[in-house]
């Protein structure tokens, strides 16, 4: 079939040269001053020059708020304007750490903070462990020659595309007292249960819903890792008559390790920041059994009648430190993996 005229190489070139005219014009305009600047500052100075806009945006929208947040954490009172607040040094931090026994939140002055810390720690351990195991299992299955493989990949990835609020509302509709799950149980002649008002079940629901919402993303990363493993290794193992479990432990897992590490660290960071879908699902209840650190900060800073912006800022700085440690860990792993590859 003859290609249509508009997509022929000649017409493409013509279109490209027309589109390039304004670009060329701009480049001619800035060429002279940039050359002068390069003479003045050298190559490294030019790097700084091109990085400056990005750094400016980063500074204004990330570093400056961080600094303001830190200043807030050193102030007291209920006013929001910094100018109306009084400097109290590290009192907010002392208040957060004033505790008889850190393992017993009720012995702490800010019991809600330590409850949130404990809940978050449990959530991170359970959610990250279970989610990675499930993501790995899903990726291994999706890596096989399944019928309608693309469909199954889409099924597992679909929840990732949903808004956290939608995720929370869907599962609330399923799990609430008069929800779909209890209706199904009732129809089967089983006893319905108040899933979201039972502390253990509500926490389990928070973990499960979070896994459902995010697992697809991590499964996709692992699937990409699996597909990058050379097929000839598996063929060689098959020829040697190696058992499937040994193939997994000796070939798949070691070669998937870099992807797994990235997934672990990303999942850890995301889990520490858990908020939206759980907030919609349980509101932090029953009691405070699903109240995590981010919700504590939000409630303390903004939502509660007993709000204290300074205390919320102090808690967020502490949470930020945890996230910095996790990020450094990720960077360290990245560099180590890169180093190994180069070797």
């Amino acid at each position, binding site marked *: 079939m003859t290609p249509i005229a508009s997509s022929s190489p000649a017409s493409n070139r013509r279109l490209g040269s027309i589109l390039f005219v304004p670009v060329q014009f701009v480049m001619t305009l800035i060429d002279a001053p940039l050359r002068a600047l390069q003479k003045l500052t050298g190559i490294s100075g030019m790097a700084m020059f091109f990085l400056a806009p990005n750094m400016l945006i980063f500074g204004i929208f990330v570093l400056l708020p961080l600094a303001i947040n830190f200043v807030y954490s050193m102030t*007291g*009172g*209920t*006013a*929001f*304007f910094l100018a109306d607040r*009084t400097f109290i040094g590290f009192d907010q931090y002392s208040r957060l750490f004033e505790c008889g026994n850190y393992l017993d939140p*009720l012995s702490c002055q800010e*019991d809600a903070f330590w*409850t949130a810390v404990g809940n978050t720690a449990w959530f991170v351990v359970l959610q990250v462990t279970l989610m990675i195991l499930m993501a790995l299992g899903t990726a291994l299955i999706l890596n096989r020659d399944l019928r309608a493989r693309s469909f199954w990949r889409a099924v597992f990835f679909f929840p990732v595309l949903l808004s956290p609020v939608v995720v929370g509302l869907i599962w609330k509709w399923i799990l609430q*007292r*008069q929800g779909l799950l209890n209706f199904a149980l009732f129809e089967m002649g089983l006893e319905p249960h*108040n899933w*979201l*008002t039972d*502390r253990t079940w509500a926490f389990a629901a928070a973990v499960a819903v979070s896994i459902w919402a995010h697992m697809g993303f991590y499964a996709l990363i692992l699937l990409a890792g699996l597909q990058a493993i050379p097929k000839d290794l598996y063929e060689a193992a098959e020829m040697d008559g190696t058992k499937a479990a040994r193939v997994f432990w000796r070939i798949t897992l070691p070669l998937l390790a870099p992807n797994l590490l990235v997934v672990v660290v990303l999942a850890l960071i995301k889990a520490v920041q858990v908020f939206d879908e759980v907030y919609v699902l*349980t*509101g*932090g*209840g*029953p*009691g*405070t*059994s*699903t*109240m995590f650190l981010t*919700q504590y900060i939000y*409630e303390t800073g*903004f*939502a*509660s*009648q*007993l*709000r*204290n912006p300074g205390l919320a800022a102090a808690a967020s700085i502490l949470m930020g430190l945890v996230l910095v440690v996790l990020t450094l860990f990720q960077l360290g792993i990245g560099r180590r993996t890169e180093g190994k590859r180069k070797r």
Partner: protein
Amino acid sequence: MNKKSILAGLALALLTGTAANAGDVRVMWYSDGVEGEVMKDLVNRFMEENPGINVILDNVAYSVIKEQLPVQLEAGNGPDVARVTAIKDLAKHWLDLRPLVKDPAYWDENFGDKADWMRPDGSDQISGFMTQLTLTGGFANKTLFDQAGVEMPGPKATWEEWAAAAKKVADSQQVPYPMAIDRSGHRITAPMLSYGANYIGEDGKPAPLDQGAKDFLTKFVNWTEEGVFAKDVWVSAAGNTYRAAADDFINGQLAFYYSGSWQVANLATKIGNNFDWVATGSPCGPAACTGMPGGAALVAVKYTKNPKDVATFMDWMAQEDIVREFSERTLFLPAHKGVVEKGGLNFETENEQAKAALGTFVEASKSTSETALKLPAWRWADTVYAAIVTRIGQTLAGELPLEDAFARIDADIAQKVKDTGL
């Protein structure tokens, strides 16, 4: 051609730039029932009569008013006018309309008795007016009582009598819970006052929880553990988040529901002919049979850039015939002295149950205790409410013993007072 285009563009930019500011009055509004529709209609009529003023009605959820508006106000932002319930707590953000309204004497005469509810202590500021007066009270599912063959307790019945009767009904009719009370410090304060509680200390600051308060809270926690009160409502959130149990009552899942007069229109609309219901007033305790007064106010925000337009709008909304119409169409109790004294309100509903319920609330307002009447104008009321809801919610979820909850409530309130620096 190019010059013309540029000039036209500049003119348009200038036009839209000015139209976005001068004459705009942004109103933040929430609805419990049908009042959003009524307000929309009134706003349209106001704009027809005042073509130079453009009123933008932002209908938001109550949680936005409760959680986000205070933050906006603290930052010096927010709407020009808002419908709020935390009127005393946020009083420092309201605009003084006294120099701006046409006739301050009219405002003093008709809204003066509730003016202290919404202005800083010791001032004569006109901040706005109550769009409705409310009173907490109970609703009973009459059909369930009739089907169970249980006689409904009378007007002076105690909380214990209602609990016993509602439990019989629930057991007989297989209803999940006999009773429910909204997850709200304001709502639970009514029975606490009936048991003799008094939050206000001699110095005007919050007093530690007294025996009356502890007595009712102890009963409430025990009743909830026994399944008399709906546990879901109180444990379904952390902190002082508001939760209403209205949907459970509307769905026929409760024999008795303690909320307030603002629910009448909501219940009338949503229950329809599904079952018969009645307003019961507030059950009695050893000290009183009181409900908690309250309501929502339409207030002007002092950060407005159009104070004159705001005052024009407020003057129009506060007119006697507009207040009367608003009350009749929304089934809210009016706070306008002239409207109340003239009486003869013709509530626009065919629903006889709703009319009877409004009559019950008017009657119940006569037994409102002195302590209850003081609380809406007391600046620490919301602080006390928040601490009670937060800690009792934890107790009901099984994570805080009741005695510890009492200690924590006192400590939370004391900390808030200390943080405020007063």
